[in-house]
């Protein structure tokens, strides 16, 4: 906020119940909240980035084992889930749009849609995890089974370890996202959110879209290695 604009904003002090004492206007409050969320998302990029670096190192060391292990993931479910998340990003964007125009019933509808899609993603993910358990592809916790290509027995465990860390953390972020959506729904329902104060919806949306972006990278990196043949690069 450039300081000289705030004199006019000063006259709005106390006009909105959502304005907290140490800000002069909702605009200033929103700018701060938005910058705060973006800064938080930077930390998220580097959080996932650390695991992606482990992924990159081992994929460059063991390309064949990674391709072999990747073939055990269900590409149909992965692609379906990618579409589900992209769809949920759309409904989230539409929720923000509705909030900006003060269309609360629409906002609530899109929040419910977003939650439903997020939950769908998690259910599908649950089925995938269960399949991994049945196939014996959870390293460490359960006896690891890789009889079909025993030469990759050790290195495939690295792939699956990283797979579970990355997708598990992603699923955890989805769960947190669902919690935030419930919270936003309550605020939309009880009148906290209105045309002048839709900042929380937009901030929550930033988080949701970020989680979507993580999956946009995870899908090709985990599911689509060396799909064109038996050898990988």
């Amino acid at each position, binding site marked *: 906020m450039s*300081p000289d604009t705030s004199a006019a904003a000063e006259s709005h002090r106390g006009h909105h119940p959502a304005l907290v004492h140490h800000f002069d206007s909702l605009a200033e409050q929103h700018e701060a909240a938005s910058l705060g969320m973006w800064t938080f998302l930077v930390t998220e990029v*580097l959080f996932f980035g650390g695991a992606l670096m482990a992924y990159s190192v081992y994929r460059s060391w063991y390309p064949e084992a990674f391709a072999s292990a990747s073939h055990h993931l269900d590409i149909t479910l992965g692609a379906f889930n990618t579409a589900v998340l992209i769809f949920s990003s759309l409904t989230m964007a539409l929720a923000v749009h509705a909030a900006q125009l003060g269309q609360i019933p629409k906002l609530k509808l899109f929040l419910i849609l977003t939650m439903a899609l997020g939950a769908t993603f998690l259910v599908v993910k649950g089925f995938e995890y269960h399949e991994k358990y049945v196939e014996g592809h959870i390293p460490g916790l359960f006896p690891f089974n890789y009889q079909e290509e025993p030469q990759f027995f050790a290195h495939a465990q690295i792939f699956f370890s990283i797979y579970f*860390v990355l997708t598990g953390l992603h699923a955890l972020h989805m769960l947190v996202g669902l919690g935030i959506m419930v919270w936003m729904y309550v605020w939309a329902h009880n009148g906290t959110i209105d045309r002048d104060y839709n900042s929380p919806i937009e901030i929550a949306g930033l988080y949701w879209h970020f989680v979507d972006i993580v999956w946009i990278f995870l899908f090709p990196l985990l599911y689509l290695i060396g799909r064109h043949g038996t050898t990988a690069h």
Partner: protein
Amino acid sequence: MSATPAQSTLSAKPTLPAISPVMPEHHYLNNGYGLKSWLLTRDHKRIAILYLLSVSFFFLLGGLFAVVVRLELATPAGDLLTSDNYNKSFTMHGVLMVFFFLIPAIPATLGNFLIPLMVGAKDLAFPKINLLSWYIYMLGASFGSWAILTGGLDTGWTFYTPFSTVASTSAVVPAALGVFISGFSSILTGLNFIVTIHRMRAPGLTWFRLPLFVWAHYATSLIMILGTPVIAITIVLVAAERVFSFGIFDPKRGGDPVLFQHLFWFYSHPAVYIMVLPAMGVISELVAGSCRKSVFGYHFVAFSSLAIAIIGFFVWGHHMFVAGQSVYAALIFSILSFLVAIPSAVKVFNWTATMYKGSVTHATPMWYAMGFIGLFTIGGLTGLFLAAVGLDIHVTDTYFIVAHFHYVMVGGTIMGYLGGLHYWWPKMTGKLYNENAAKVAAALIFFGFNLTFFPQFVLGYLGMPRRYHAYPPEFQMLNVLSSAGASILAVGYIFPIIYLLYSLKNGRIAGANPWGAVGLEWRTSSPPPTFNFEKTPSVTWEAYEYPEGVESHVA
């Protein structure tokens, strides 16, 4: 922030101290007394006090482990502790000091207290998140304490794999969880500072009118935001390997323990700058305030903080010269490590230049500032030895390293912390401490510190390895000196607790501006009111605009 027409514009001249200052009627300390008024506060100043008490507690706890270590090393034989218990003692000393004291020490206490005051804001941008960060810190610290109580940790503070994931039988997971959780408190503090400094500066307070303390904390916050998540994921990976037996760093399954070291040091080297940059910010304030001059080369000092924060991310591999990384990686990391010396030297030269022809007052804060400059210079210069691959290989894992980082951490961060605490104590409490007692403590700390750690440079160069509870008898002389110094240092650290607490009840009333310093924090009462300023200040002057010939009335 607001600029109403009725706004009074403060003049650049600091108000001369009143003859007999009185305590303000309403201030943040008497705005509620119950436990609830503290534990549910959103006032950044009260949260700073909560942090001050907690980090000081963990400093003393970490210090206790150091006492045990130095006692053991007073004799060559491993007679006081078993080797296992010795391993646990130095590990707990390191973990407590690094994660629960040094990293939050200055930002969460002085930074929390001063940044809103210095930018002329009523509070930090997110007061609830600020309080949350303290609770997260306490939760993390509880896990750390739990690790001590359930058998301790023996991996060293660095948690190196595969020892931490496969071999160690100590409480790795509780300790790692503690570090993981307290990392979030650090992230939230950094986030709050960044948003506050960007969005909440008072009218007229441009970036280049900000105190250098604020610049240093901005740079620190960048590191907290960009580095801490990487240690968080590293700990997740280690925990997954230890708890679920996943294979990520496990050599048996083709994993690479050196990858752990890359991830660990990507955070933990910049974390050194999380510890020392805020201290540098403190020193800039102390030097300007005690010399009654603008800091020489303000822009250079401001940008050198950012340069240290950024270049600090390029150098982590110098911790891994003997770990098995490639020769070329070592070469690149070595060259990049030398680069960090440039902005660090800019600061030291500019503080020194600021003193030149300044009307230097010799109050306690200035003693700490001078102590910092000297000790940090030694710590920094020995860092150059260590950046050179050949020399580093000679002294890797010896006491030379131990001495080097204690000169930076203790000689740097703790001197800055104590100096800052003495400088702003009158602001925080409204009371003056006993100046003579404070000088005795400062002298004890400086003398005790050098006696403790200078011999360790020699020991390390002669080849005494770190992390052993026994050593050859020819090293005893220097070790005894070191242990003797440590006991002097311990007295030096206990002393301020006594006279600072004493001053709360019996100290003279400080008044708004006992040092006659410029800067927004001195333009409100001591202690400040809950919302910091009666009227939002409007800044029309440059940083450190000291008029000629005004002396402070203390010292």
